[in-house]
């Protein structure tokens, strides 16, 4: 039969853990970024590169029809929207102040999660609609000299791909995200009540 003071001596007498060395930690912290924001940063960079390439194509290639320019412009606007959403998330991840008290911190996390769920719910629809319009307009001129069979194939493949993304992938993505968010929000609510 042990009392709490004895448990305390057990705790304090515990062997030194296999802990990271200060030099390893220093090396890591200098590298900065956690995995999550690193991934997001990588997405921002790759999308920005695609944006620049596409913009370059629009500026340096000469197209005859206004529909091509309109299509490319819509695709570029969609890319800007997407990049700005990612930058906003990136800032949010960085802005969260880990030095505030846990109750406020959990409240911040909860708001952030809900915000993400809302935005990614309707954002994906807008993204797909804009990309579809952009592609349709772009193909109008680009495929003008192509054979009818090629045109049909190009439109069908693009259309099917977009339908697949919207119906199947979007559903999977949203369900997956929602499931994780719900789980996390539930846990956050439970945790918050523990600190009340």
């Amino acid at each position, binding site marked *: 039969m042990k009392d709490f003071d004895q448990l305390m001596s057990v705790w304090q007498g515990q062997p030194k853990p296999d802990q990271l060395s200060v030099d390893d930690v220093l090396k890591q912290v200098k590298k900065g970024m956690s995995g999550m924001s690193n991934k997001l940063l990588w997405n921002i960079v790759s999308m920005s590169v695609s944006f620049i390439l596409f913009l370059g194509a629009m500026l340096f290639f000469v197209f005859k029809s206004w529909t091509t320019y309109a299509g490319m412009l819509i695709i570029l606007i969609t890319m800007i929207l997407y990049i700005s959403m990612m930058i906003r998330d990136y800032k949010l991840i960085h802005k969260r102040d880990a030095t505030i*008290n846990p109750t406020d911190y959990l409240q911040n996390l909860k708001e952030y999660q809900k915000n993400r769920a809302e935005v990614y719910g309707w954002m994906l629809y807008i993204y797909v609609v804009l990309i579809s319009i952009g592609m349709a307009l772009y193909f109008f001129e680009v495929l003008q000299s192509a054979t009818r069979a090629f045109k049909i194939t190009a439109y069908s493949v693009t259309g099917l791909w977009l339908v697949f993304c919207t119906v199947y992938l979007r559903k999977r993505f949203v369900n997956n995200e929602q499931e994780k968010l719900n789980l996390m929000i539930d846990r956050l609510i439970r945790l918050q009540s523990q600190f009340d």
Partner: protein
Amino acid sequence: MAEKEAAFKKIFEANSKKIYHLCYGYTGDDDAANDLLQETFLKVWQDLNKFRNQAMISTWIYRIAVNTCLTYLRSEKRQAKDELTPEIAETRIEEVSEKNEQVALLYKCISKLEESERIIITMVLDEMPYPEIAEISGISEGNLRVKIFRIKQRLTELYNQYERL
């Protein structure tokens, strides 16, 4: 930069052991505890210039560690499947048994507590003053005393119950 590095090393050496205990108490897993320790000190490094001695540095670091532990549940691969359940703690206990049976049993009992209780009790076990724990956890001191009393009782009960088995 060299000054910042020196300050960081000093802070790490003075606090890392206790922060590791906190993280280990929360997760019950050595790798996860080291990850959380690293993440905590990453935030310490990033915010070191902002620290204006508004509180003791250890209080400040503890708060970062507590919030880092709470965000631990964010990661998708850890969600649900890697939560610290008594079953997982049981398996992990086997891995650490050679270290120290009593310590392992104590960690097992800590794993049975609620998340906030795990965090609070590791600070109590490290003999941190109550006002400091209250400040870190954002709970009023009066409330905290009641909580600590209950957690101590529960932990002792659990420990004695398992020791008899």
